[in-house]
C-alpha cells in the first residue's frame, strides 16, 4: 500500500518539477539573488 502511495507522490512532484522547468522557472538562476534587493516602487534617485 505504501509503495503505490510513495510512487504516486513521487510522480506528482516530478510533474510539478517538469511544469516549472517548462515554464521557465530555471531559465535564470542568477537573477533572483539580485532582484530581491531591488524595491520596485522606490524613487530611483535616493542618494
Amino acid at each position, binding site marked *: 500500500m505504501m*509503495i503505490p502511495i*510513495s*510512487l504516486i507522490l*513521487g510522480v506528482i*512532484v*516530478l510533474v510539478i*518539477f*517538469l511544469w516549472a*522547468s517548462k515554464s521557465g522557472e*530555471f*531559465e*535564470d*538562476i*542568477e*537573477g533572483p539573488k*539580485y532582484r530581491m534587493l*531591488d524595491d520596485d516602487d522606490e*524613487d*530611483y*534617485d*535616493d*542618494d
Partner: protein
Amino acid sequence: MTTTKTMTTTNVVACKHCLLETNKNQAIIESVNGEECSFCCPGCASVYKILQEEGFSKFYSKRDDNWEPGAVSPSNVSEELFVDSVTETDTGYEVSIALSGIRCAACIWLIETYLSKAEGIESIRVNYATHKAKISWTKGVINLREIIDRISSIGYCPLPISDSDTATIYEKEKKDYFFRFSIGAFFSMQLMIYTVALYAGYFQGIDTGLRTMFQYAAWLLSTPVMFYSGMPFIKSSFQALRRGHTTMDTLIFMGSFTAYVYSVFALFLDKDVYFDTTSMIITLILLGRYIESSAKARTSNAVSKLLTYQPSQVKFLENFYLETYTSGELSSTTVPVKQIRPGDYLEVMPGDSIPADGIVIYGSSEVNESMLTVESLPQIKDIDGKVFAGTGNINGKLVIMVENIGSTTTLSRIVRAVEDAQASKAPIQNIADMVVGYFVPTIIAIGFSTFIGWYYLTHELLTSTMNAVSVLVIACPCALGLATPLAILIATSKITKLGVVAKAGDIIEILSKAETFIFDKTGTITKGELKVEEIITSGYDKETLLKYTASIERNSSHLIAKAITDTYLEDFMTVDDFKEHPGKGLSGSINGQEIIAGTLSYLKEKGVETPDELVTEHIKNGYTAACIAIDNKFAGFITLSDSIRDDAREMLLALAKRNVTAVILTGDNRLAAEKLIERLDVPNLEYIAEVTPFEKADVVRSYQQNGKRCAMVGDGINDAPALTTADVGIAIGQGTDIAIESSDIVLMRDELKLVETVFDTSVTTLKVIKQNLFWAFSYNFVMIPLAVTGTIHPVFSAAFMSVSSLLVVFNSLRISR
C-alpha cells in the same frame, strides 16, 4: 560613488561613467549638474548625462567592486535586424533580443528600470545568465525603433538572436541534458529506497512477496532512466556501431543496458536484480554532460560573429564626384549595409569601423588594423590606400570606394578559414575511447565463449544465457564507466573556479599531451599597448626633454603620443602654434622655442641633422622611436615598445621546466624578435619571425606534421585559424569573439599564468585517469573469471562493485586539491 580607484599618478583620472583611467589632458571634461566630471569618451559622457537627468544615478552606487572599467561603444543598430523576432500579443508586440555590454547586475537593473520608465513598455525582463531580454510593448504608444534607441542611449548594444547561432544550439543542448539528468536523478533517488531495502532484505531476510514487489517497483523506476535519460547514449552507440566504432558511449550503453536486461530476466527467474547499476551509471554521466554543455553555452556569444565588427548601417554617397563632395554639395545618406555593392562610395567618420574592403578616394586617417594584421600601431591611410572591413578608423574622415563587401572581405575570409579548419580537424582519440576500442570486443568475445562453454557442458539454454549476460554486467562496471568522465568532470569544475572554461571535457586530456606551446606575440605575450622604454638625449637632461615632448604630445590622440604623455607626471607647459602632421609628427612652440616631435624622416625633411645610425639601430631592435628637435637641433629620441605582460616570463619558465617547447610567433623582423627573446630570458624559447597573419595556421600545421601535439595561445581575429588548427586552442578572454569561438579553452581572466595552471591540471588529470583505469581493470581481472565460471555471488559482486567505484571517486577527487 562607492568605488574610487586610487590615483597613482597626478595626470590620470577615472572616467566618471566607466571608471576607465584616462590621461587627464585627453579626458573630456564637462560639467553635469554643476559638478565637473571627466570622461574617457563622448559615449560615456552622454550616458552619464542621461542617467543624471533621468534620475538613475543610483546605478553608480549599485554596481559592485567587480565592475570592469571599459568605455561605452556607440552602437547604431538597424531595427530591421529584429523584425523577424517580433511576435504579436493581445495588446501589442513582444521581442526577444540579446544585449551586449552588460557587465554586472547593476547594468541589468538599469536596463530594466530605464526601459520600463518609458511609456508604452508593458514588461521587460533581462536574463542574468544569458543577457537576453524579453520586451513587450503596447501598440501605437512606442515602437521598436524607439526601444532600440533607448537601449543604445544608455550604452548597451541590442542584437538579434538567431536560431542557427552556436550559442542557441548549445543552450538547447544544455536544456536537453538538464531534463534528462533531472528525470534520471529523480527516478534514481526513488529507486535507491527499494534497492537499499532489497540489500537489507538479503542479509536480514525478507518476505518473498515484498521482495518481488520491491523488485517490480525498481523495474518500473529504472525504465524511464534507461530509455529516456539514457537515449543520447543509445543513439550515439548505434551511430558509432554503424561506422564500426566503439566509443565511451558504447560502454555506458552496454553496461547499463545489459544490467537492465539481466535484471528483467532475473526478476522472472526469482534472482537478484541490478536496476540500480543501470540508473546510477546513466545519471552520473549525464551530470557530467550537463556541466560540459553549460560551459560551452557560456563561452559562445549570442552575437553573430561578423555583426560585431561590421556596422549594419553606412554613410552612402550617391553620384559621387570629388568636386561636389569637397564643395559640400553632396552629403551622405544613411543606408543599410546590405544595399551596398562594389563600386559604391562610402563616407567613414572618425571612430567608426570600416564597413567594407576598399580604396581610399579622399582624406587621410590612421586606421587600427590590429585585429587583422600583426601590427599593433595604427596604419596611415592616404589616397589610394587599401582599407579592410572590420578595422577601426581613428582620427580622420575618409571616403572609400567599395571593392569587396559581405562574404568576400578579408574579415569574412578569416572566418571561413576558421570554419574550414574546424571541418578538417582530425579528432584525437582520447584514452577512454582507445581502451574501449579493445575492451568492448574482448568482453563480447568472452561473453560469447562463456555461453558456448556452458551450453557445451550443461546443454541448458537458460543457465548459459544468464551466465553469459552476467559476464557482460560484471565486466562493464561503474568503475570503468566512471574512470574518465568523473576525473574530467572534477578537473573541469576545478579550472572553472580558477576562471578557465574548457569547452569539451576531453580537451583537458588532449592538453596534457601537448609538446609544443605556440604563443602569438602581440596581445598574448605582450600587452598590445605601447610603453616608453628609454629616453636618449643629446644636449638636454632627460626630465627636460620629457617635459617638452609630453607637453606637445598631450595635444595629440595618437597612440605614441598617449604613451609618452602617460609617462610624464608633472605639470605641462603651454604650447603655442600646435600642428599635427598625420603620419609624420607634431610641431609647436614652447616659450618661443620651436619643437618638432616625430619620425626620423620627418625631422630630416625639416632639415634637422640626425644621428641616423643610432636611431635606426633601435628601430631595427623592434622599438618605435619618437625623435625630438628643439629649434631645429636634434635633442634626442624616446623609444617605445609593446610591453611584455608581467606574468609572461614566469609562465614561460614554468613551461620550460615541464619539458615542453614554447614558440613565439611574431610579425616583427628577426632582430626585433631576438631582442624580445633576450628580454624574456627563458631557456629553450623558440621564435618564428616575420609571420603574416595567414601563415600562423601553417606554422601550427608544420609542427603537427612533425608529429608534435600543439597548443596555440592567442587573442586576435588573425589567430583564429591557428587556434582552430592546433590540437588545443587557448584564447585569452579579453580577446576577440572569433578567437574565443575558435578555441577549445578560454581564459576568462586576463592572466597568462592560467596557461600553466590548466596545463598542470590536465597532466594530473591524465595521471588520475590512468590510475582509475588500472583499478577498474584490476576489478575485471578478478571478477571476470568468477563470472565465467558462474561461481560469483551476487552480493559479493555488488559490494566489490561499490568499493571499486568509490575508489575511483576518491581518486578523482584528488584532482580538485
